[in-house]
Structure formats: C-alpha cells, structure tokens
C-alpha cells in the first residue's frame, strides 16, 4: 500500500542574528494507512518541529530549507497559505499537548465541531449537529446530546482532550499529527486517551504520527518508532525492535534510562552529559561526545541511516567499512 505521508530529506532552518541554525537535517520517513509512527526523543531533539513542519505551522522565522513532504503522493511543503489551510483539518488533523489552548473558550464545543466540519464537508446545519453529537459519543463523552452545547471550561482536562481528538477527527483526515497528546493528563486519564486514539486510528485506517517523550506510551500505541537526536533521526524501526534491542547507542541509552516499574535497581544507566544546543552541534555524529562506543570516524564523518538487521540506525558501528577502526563490538549487538 502506498504511504499516506512521505517525508524526504526534510531540512528546517532558523535564521538568527548569529547565523542560521539547522533545527532539522535530513529527516526522512513515511507512514502507511492505519499505521502509528511514534516519534521520540528528549526536549530539543526536533520531534515537535517535524510535526509542525508537516502541518505547515512552523513558528517564524523557522522555514523549510530543503526536502519534500508528500501527502498521498502530492507535495504539500510548498503550498500557499490558503491551500495549506484547506488541507489542514480536511486531510491532516492535529492534536496538541494542551487541550485548553487548542479550544476556543468563547464557543461551545458543538459550534467548534460544526464549524470545522462545515468548512471541509458539504453538510447542512442539522446534519452537522447530528454528526457533532455522534463524534462526542464516539470519543466517550457521556450525555453527548446535552454536552454538545457546553463551553470548554465546563469540561475536565481529560474530557477536553477527548473534545480535541473529536475536532481533529471530525473531517475524517487521512493523517493525524498528535504532539504529546497525553502529557498534560494524569496517568489514569492518559490510559483512556491512548486506548481511544489507538482504536480510532485502526478503525478509520488513519495514519498517525505520535510525538511524545514517554516511551511507555509509544510501546503501547505505535507500530514503528523513530528516535530523534539533535534534529536527525538516530534510529527507526519496528517498535518491538527499538524498545527491546535498540541498535543505536543513543536509543539504547535512552531505553536504559527509563526507571523500571517492575523492579528496583541500584543504579540507573542514564547517559552522561546532555543534548547539544543547536548552535553547537558537534562535527561528525552529533552524539559522539556522549557515546561510549565512539571512535575516530564518529568525530569526523556524519553517519546516515544504515541497516542493522532489525532497524535502521545512523551509527558507524553498523558500517562494514568501519569495522577495523571500531574499538569493540557493542555488547548487545
């Protein structure tokens, strides 16, 4: 099946007074219908930036400086604002972290749903209202027929996020970009929302890009995972391979840092140091100053995504040509 979303060699730049910062560099991936791609990484890795570039809402002065974004085979990265506005909502739905700032506090949730649907679909007022109630029911809002006339402040945080999800889905988009959809919610609510997103994506065959820093959420929801580091994809592959046997030293370190719930450990692994600032990305592999397996080539040449068997990782350890230089073979390979 052809992918719904294709991102090819995406590059995003921020011109500043002190020179141009490259926030995203050579990011490529695609998402098939009904597939959930998880995008993880620590703050500043560029995961939200990737989502913003796809929906065409990069904060200025950020701009797409290279590469292509294709939705169902058509380029959308170079469309004029008006055309992109029509695609947003109709073909790409967006869910953001904070449900309170996504909703307009002055309109009832029903009006917001109806307006969104009528912008994109030819519906009469009565039909649209009926559908709005149907959507609220589908996302699990009790007494939807009454609640449709409530204002956002009358809902609790979890219920608001449900409304936001129904808003993103109501024009039946082909792609959903969900940026930290459960981060602002408590765990008991988070589980409800994840379950809901997963079911809806499966049922409607919607492609979903799920951006989060919570590996637990990814492990439960995603089919494939992209791990980002300093504006690039460090590793991409099926969720089980990445979580259970990550190949890139950064993704392996990230997994090892997560405190386990089922046992107590004396010493958590962690990764020494922290992610470089955009203005000071080291030469070669961006991870090399923190990497335990670093060798000469990593400090000079930047690795592209290489096959590791189960995943693709941007790491010279997986290039047959660098085998002689590598000081040791990684233990978990």
């Amino acid at each position, binding site marked *: 099946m052809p992918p719904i979303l294709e991102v090819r060699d995406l590059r995003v730049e921020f011109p500043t007074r002190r020179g141009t910062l490259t926030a995203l560099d050579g990011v490529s991936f695609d998402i098939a219908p009904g597939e959930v791609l998880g995008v993880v990484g620590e703050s500043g890795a560029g995961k939200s930036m990737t989502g913003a570039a796809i929906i065409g809402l990069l904060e200025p002065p950020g701009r797409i400086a290279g590469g292509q974004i294709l939705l169902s085979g058509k380029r959308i990265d170079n469309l004029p604002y008006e055309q992109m506005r029509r695609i947003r909502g109709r073909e790409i739905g967006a869910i953001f972290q904070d449900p309170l700032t996504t909703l307009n506090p002055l309109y009832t949730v029903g009006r917001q749903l109806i307006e969104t649907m009528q912008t994109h679909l030819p519906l009469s007022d009565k039909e649209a209202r009926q559908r709005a109630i149907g959507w609220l029911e589908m996302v699990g809002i009790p007494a939807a027929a009454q609640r449709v006339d409530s204002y956002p402040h009358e809902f609790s945080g979890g219920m608001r996020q449900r409304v936001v999800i129904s808003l993103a889905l109501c024009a039946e988009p082909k792609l959903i970009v969900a940026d930290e959809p459960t981060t602002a919610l408590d765990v*008991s609510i988070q589980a409800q929302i994840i379950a809901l997103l997963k079911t809806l994506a499966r049922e409607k065959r919607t492609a979903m890009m799920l951006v989060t820093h919570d590996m*637990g959420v990814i492990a439960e929801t995603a089919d494939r995972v992209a791990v980002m580091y300093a504006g690039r994809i460090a590793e991409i592959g099926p969720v089980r391979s990445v*979580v259970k046997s990550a190949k890139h030293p950064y993704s392996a370190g*990230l*997994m090892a*840092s997560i405190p386990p719930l089922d046992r*107590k450990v004396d010493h958590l692994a*962690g990764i020494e140091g*922290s*992610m470089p600032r955009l203005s000071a990305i080291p030469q070669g592999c961006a991870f090399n100053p923190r990497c335990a397996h670093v060798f000469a080539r990593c400090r000079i040449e930047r690795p592209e995504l290489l096959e590791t068997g189960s995943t693709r990782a941007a790491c010279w350890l997986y290039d047959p040509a660098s085998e002689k230089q590598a000081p040791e073979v990684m233990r978990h390979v």
Partner: protein
Amino acid sequence: MSETPVLVAEDLARYFDVSRPLLQRLLSREGRRTLKAVDGVSFEIPKGTTLSLVGESGCGKSTVARLVVGLYRPTRGRVLFEGIELEKARADAETRRRMQMIFQDPYASLNPRWRVQDIVAEPIRAFGMAEGAAALRERVGHLLTQVGLSPLDGEKFPHEFSGGQRQRISIARALSSNPDFLVCDEPTSALDVSVQAQILNLMKDLQQRLGLTYLFISHNLAVVRQISDRIGVMYLGRLVELAPAETLFTAPRHPYTRALMEAIPDLEMTGRQRIPVGGEVPSPISPPSGCPFHPRCPLADARCKAAMPALLAPMTQGDTVVACHAVEERRDPPPAPAGADQRIGTTAIAL
C-alpha cells in the same frame, strides 16, 4: 522504635478558602467554599530513609510538602521535627538549617541574576556557617564537586546550564547548610529521561554518603519505586495506602493503587488490553460522600458511599495500612504484584 523519627505528621490538614467575593456571594446566596487540599494525613519518616508521596494532580501531595517545611501553616494537626513541634523547631536557626527543599522547576527556582556561587553560598551566609571569603569559596567548590559540577562553574549564571545541571545546582544549594532532611517536590519531572536517571542516581548516592532523610513527592510510580523505602498513595487530600515500597508494588491493596499501577503504560508490550480506570478525579471542593474513590471503584457498596474508611492494617500484611472498607471486610480480590498478569500471559485477564 528506639530512635525518634526525623519527621512525624499527625492528622495534618490544610484547607483553602476559595469562596467568591462577599458581594457576589450575597447576590447569589452562596455560602463560603473551602477546598480541603489535605485532610487528615499522618505518617512518620525514620532517619536515613525516604518516604514518597504519589498521586495524581490535585491530590494534595505538594501541599503536604509545603506544610512539612513550614511554607503553609496546618489548619489542623501538627508536624514534629525530631520530636519538636515544627513552629518551635523553625524558630531556632540551628534546627531550621537542617531542613531544606528542592523544587520541581530548575528554571524558576534559581535567581537568573545571581552567579551560581552566590546562589549556593546564600544559605551558608544566612546561617553564618563559613568564616571569611576563602572558606566560603572552598565550601561552594566542594558542594559543586559533590553534585558533579566543576568548582569553576560557580562563576557562571544559571542560563548557561541545561535543565539537569540546574537541578544539580538546586541540590548543591539545598545541601549547603548541611541539612539532615530534604523535601523534594517532583525534582525530576521537568527533566528528560536520560537526565532524570543521573539526578536520581545522585540523590541516592548523596543519601547514602550523608545519611539524609527524604520526603519525596512525585506522580511517577516508576521513579518512586527506585528511590523509596516507604510509599504513601494519596487521593483527594488523603492517604489511601501507606506501605513499604516493595510491598506496595508486589501486593498493592487499595483499589485506587491497583488501578493506578494498571494504568501506567509499560515497555513490556505484551499487547494485552489494559482496563483503564473509568472516570476522573472529582473536584476537591465538593468531594463525594463517604470514601472519595467510591464513584470510580469497582468494589464500592452502600457502606463506601456513606462512611469514610480509616487507615487500617489488613490482617494479612504486616506493614501496610489501607483506607478501604472492601479490604477491611476482605471483599477485595487477593493481592497480586503490579503487572503480574503480564507474566502469566493472557490467562489472567479472565479475572
């Protein structure tokens, strides 16, 4: 117990007045409204151990932290620091220096206009603990080294550091007055996971080396498991379960604790369908009657709706206390470790 616990909280409560202004109240004929942020919480923390309080937002865990260091006065109940009433203890600078707090947000809790050395030196100056500039500088350098920074970092300003490094500065500041007791309010929740691991390791390490006692506040059960000796689970201003850390995870008793553990997404990926807790945390301004968890509880009956359960020790387990009628009446299913059904596989889901 032979030794006095470092900290004792007895029936601690803190109410906030959230009434509307008088005129509006008169016009709409409303009474006063109080928010019972914390309502009758008791615990003790023995020397050199960590007690963690976990719960969802609004359960009152941060209010307890603030009550314990004296940032709020309790509406009811009292706090004893080494057997002395908190107010008396805090009147004495020598006792006051022995308790410190680490806050959640390392961006907001450091003065951006001060150099790191001044931030770390402030408690030392305030308590007059170093004679002369040379001694002060040496002490600050020592503290920065202790938390994994360089003494040269003292010259810099907070904005030159990453989130994890800033939290190290907060810890150095808290340690500068040689405290015995640290209250840590979500110290790692603003940090990335690889940095969180560094800070948790540092805190455990410091506890062992300096014999510190911690009250640790967090919403993250996995973090809490790594650092605690005992864990209290809070719901709507009350403790619903208080147990040794390992017992809480291997045999959680309260239905809320069980639900909370069930809800956490994990990395096991067995593909099992988890059953999320229905509903949401009710408003603490108008909490439900009886047990505050009863509207969401699968075991609730008439008694749960009518009467508030007290924290009792179930007969089967030595050190756990649970506030639940169902557990007291032994109506609850037998305790099972968190996530045990995963290991058994799909068969357990039939339960």
